[in-house]
């Protein structure tokens, strides 16, 4: 340094030195104790509140750790018979729904017009007034449509009573998750087979052989936590030896990865495998139970060689599976969601359930049961999911200008339904659209008025889980924190609405608020001799209800299913049909629910966005899974962007080369592709639902989401995926 030190520089250095000595002013911390402390509060001491998770429709019991009035951690409720203290990834992420930065903080009107995303707050009194006026001014009550998702039972009950009292049609219940898991189809199957619309329970825990036909038991199907708990016990629980799981589906899902064997079945032909197995059992008189004799008629129209050819599963394999299934002490066959996603879903589901009949596993350990309602029968107004055909009917009504007011609760049909159904145009035609969404999601963005519901951790309620547990259960819900914002529970809104509407509506919902209604309903169970706990007074029962997190029977009780006449006639053999000419669209599209995002509702939670997909370890995006053969034929590798084109739409996403895939199948996870729904969800990935042709199973009416054929085009572009695994150097991801 040859310069002289200037005075300015000297002072700067001196000041810096002074700062280093601590002469700079110290910040002082502040502590603000409560003005009026809540009763159980000791600073730093935790309180646990029992409630019910609502990240999916399963209804697992949760305990939430609350410190200083803030919810910190969610755990499974160890006493709850459904999930027995365990909880899945989405359940754990529930705190990011409560504390999500993109929540609506008050009721709003979309003053900039639908789709403008310009909202202005409106007072609740005014908002209720608007809704009351809209309902009162309907020329006919049939012009009111209530579109709901799998809401908790108490809201469903209130909504149904209100609509009924107005003379309006009952709620349309549908969401993407239930379509993918085939809930509506499973209800249909239960009605057909057992004469009761109860979702069957498969006693996985005690089975020695489980044939799972397209049921992703350990991921998103029906009650994944309860099923996973049972799976763990089936493997190493020790009680009955180690059970065997065989998974039959076109894609090696995480459930198939846990299975002992994966059988890559041609899409839509799972039923043929079941029929083939059944036919072999009957033909070769397999099994030690001899029950095949009386049910031989089921397989009258089935020929093993044809089934083998149709499913592309060799005859030897069918024979081997038949032996395994028939020889087992306790075998069970599970008809999963993938079956219902095809046009022959009804036939496939019947075929799979029939296997349980010929193995005489109905009502036996390790077999099939129905939930026993016990004392909770009175509470059981579980939403029955509508089929896609029924939903399409409602959409057609809207499009024809027959609906003046549509109300949406806990469902997002503009994201959930294939655009080919015409949902967006239909909603646009309805003069008044109201949403109860807590977030500005796709349907809220097309609404005129939003009356945001509390999030589930701020809500009261109850839900009878379906499928249920090994005993009657009613899962209770209570707020674990005070509502953060000026939102209102939909139950309370419906009651206030009923009071304002007066007349039959006010009579149908006579309670002043939700909690009063709940107390009345809950304490109705007080006298039950089945209860796991005792209380002498209704107040005591209500206190125990909240402490336990609901009501359940102390001992296991389940129902033995009885078959209808469906088992006395030949099973139908129905070929699947697919949208798209195979010569133009050579691949089957297999969209699947993401274990992290579910059907897309998890996309606004950053923990879930960052959760790696178990099979590809990719996250934050959409990708297209291609078999190595398909990728080679297209000349693409990991990260190359391809365009996937169906007869009704197209999307683009980067490739993941996926070894566990049939060469004629292309698989894409569902969950991204949101245009709204908050900063973590918006503008990310693509929604494969946009590719789906509105094909249905003609008998059940369910959406055949697996019946769309697609073709592929390499775009020449690349987009690296955020994958957990390092892809350079194959050492870590391939074992041989």
């Amino acid at each position, binding site marked *: 340094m*040859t310069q002289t030190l200037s005075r300015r520089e000297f002072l700067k250095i001196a000041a810096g030195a002074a700062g280093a000595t601590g002469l700079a002013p110290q910040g002082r911390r502040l502590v*603000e104790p409560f*003005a009026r402390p809540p009763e159980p509060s000791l600073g730093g001491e935790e309180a646990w509140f029992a409630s019910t998770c609502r990240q999916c429709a399963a209804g697992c019991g949760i305990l939430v750790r609350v410190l200083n009035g803030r919810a910190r951690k969610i755990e499974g409720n160890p006493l709850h018979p459904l999930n027995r203290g365990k909880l899945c990834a989405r359940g754990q992420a529930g705190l990011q729904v409560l504390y999500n930065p993109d929540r609506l903080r008050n009721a709003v009107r979309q003053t900039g017009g639908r789709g403008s995303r310009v909202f202005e707050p409106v007072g609740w009194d005014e908002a209720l007034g608007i809704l009351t006026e809209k309902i009162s001014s309907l020329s006919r009550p049939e012009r009111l449509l209530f579109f709901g998702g799998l809401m908790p039972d108490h809201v469903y009950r209130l909504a149904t009573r209100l609509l009924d009292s107005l003379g309006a049609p009952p709620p349309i219940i549908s969401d993407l998750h239930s379509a993918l898991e085939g809930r509506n189809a499973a209800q249909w199957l239960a009605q057909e087979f057992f004469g009761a619309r109860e979702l069957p329970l498969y006693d996985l825990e005690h089975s020695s052989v489980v044939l799972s036909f397209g049921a992703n038991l350990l991921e998103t199907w029906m009650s994944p936590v309860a099923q996973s708990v049972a799976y763990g016990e089936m493997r190493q629980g020790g009680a009955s030896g180690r059970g065997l799981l065989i998974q039959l589906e076109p894609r090696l899902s995480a459930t198939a990865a846990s299975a002992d064997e994966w059988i890559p079945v041609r899409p839509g032909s799972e039923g043929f495998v079941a029929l083939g197995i059944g036919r072999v059992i009957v033909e070769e008189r397999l099994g030690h139970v001899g029950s095949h004799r009386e049910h031989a008629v089921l397989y009258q129209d089935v020929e093993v060689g044809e089934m083998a050819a149709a499913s592309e599963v060799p005859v030897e394999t069918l024979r081997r599976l038949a032996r395994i299934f028939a020889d087992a002490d306790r075998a069970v066959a599970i008809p999963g969601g993938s079956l219902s996603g095809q046009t022959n879903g009804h036939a496939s589901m019947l075929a799979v359930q029939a296997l349980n009949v010929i193995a005489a596993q109905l009502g036996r350990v390790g077999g099939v049961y129905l939930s026993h309602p016990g004392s909770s029968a009175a509470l059981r107004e579980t939403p029955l999911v509508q089929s896609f055909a029924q939903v399409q009917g409602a959409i057609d009504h809207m499009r024809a200008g027959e609906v003046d007011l549509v109300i949406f609760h806990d469902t997002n049909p503009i994201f959930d339904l294939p655009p080919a159904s015409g949902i967006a145009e239909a909603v646009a035609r309805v003069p008044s659209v109201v949403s109860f969404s807590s977030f500005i999601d796709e349907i809220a963005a097309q609404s005129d008025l939003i009356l945001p519901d509390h999030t589930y951790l701020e809500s009261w309620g109850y839900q009878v889980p379906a499928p249920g547990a090994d005993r009657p259960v009613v899962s209770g819900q209570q707020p674990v924190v005070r509502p953060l914002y000026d939102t209102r529970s939909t139950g309370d809104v419906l009651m206030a609405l009923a009071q304002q509407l007066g007349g039959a509506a006010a009579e149908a919902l006579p309670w002043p608020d939700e909690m009063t209604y709940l107390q009345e309903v809950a304490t109705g169970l007080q006298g039950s001799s089945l209860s796991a706990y005792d209380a002498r007074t209704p107040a005591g029962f209500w206190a125990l209800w909240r402490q336990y997190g609901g009501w359940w029977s102390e001992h296991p009780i389940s129902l033995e299913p009885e078959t209808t006449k469906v088992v006395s006639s030949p099973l139908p053999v129905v070929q699947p049909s697919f949208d798209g000419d195979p010569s133009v669209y050579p691949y089957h599209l297999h969209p699947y629910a993401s274990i992290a995002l579910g059907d897309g509702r998890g996309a606004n939670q950053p923990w879930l966005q960052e959760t790696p997909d178990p099979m590809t370890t990719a996250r934050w995006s959409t990708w297209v899974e291609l078999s190595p053969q398909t990728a080679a034929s297209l000349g693409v590798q990991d990260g190359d962007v391809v365009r996937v084109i169906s007869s009704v739409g197209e999307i683009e996403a980067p490739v993941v080369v996926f070894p566990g895939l049939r060469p004629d199948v292309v698989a894409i996870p569902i969950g991204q592709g949101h245009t709204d729904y908050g900063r973590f969800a918006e503008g990310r990935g693509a929604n494969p639902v946009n590719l789906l042709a509105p094909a249905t199973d003609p008998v059940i009416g369910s959406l055949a989401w697996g019946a769309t054929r697609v073709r592929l085009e390499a775009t020449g572009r690349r987009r690296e995926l955020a994958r957990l695994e390092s892809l350079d150097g194959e050492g870590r991801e391939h074992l041989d």
Partner: protein
Amino acid sequence: MSDSAAGTPSGRSFPSTRLLIAFLLVVGLAVVAGMLWTRAQALAAPEQPIEYSHEIHVAAGVQCLYCHSGALRASTAGIPSVEKCMGCHAVIATDEPEVQQVASYGAQGDEIPWIPVNVQPDFVFFSHPPHLAASLNCETCHGDVSQMGVARPALRMDMGWCLKCHLEQPEEKVARLADCVTCHK
């Protein structure tokens, strides 16, 4: 290299060596003064929104655990809520201006923004209960609070001070008490 070799020797950059020494002395003194001053600041009683006097309340017979009830069973001792103060002060000493201030906070449902006196950085997890269980009384660490007006820290509660006592414990306990993870999680 050639620059510094050809350049002026160090003595020529500054006016003179003496001035340099003087400058260093000044800086050194400033540093020492700064250290002494901040230390005094750390042990001084911070300015509180209300001039609460522990001396008066202890003399009146109020026990430590009455207000700082978390110390016995919780991970934070806590500062009493306005409601706790008003429990007595709704009727006691209502003519005192400080008490009237408390009452006005209470009437508005506001919390009083106290400045905590004995508080550790957020990477230190101190818990009172095991210390109370070891029969330590409050004065051991918090000084003679009965003589304090507005609360002040009795001593610098730095890690060395904690460890000094921890290391003097019976041998079978020292391993746990000197383990970092006991206090830093």
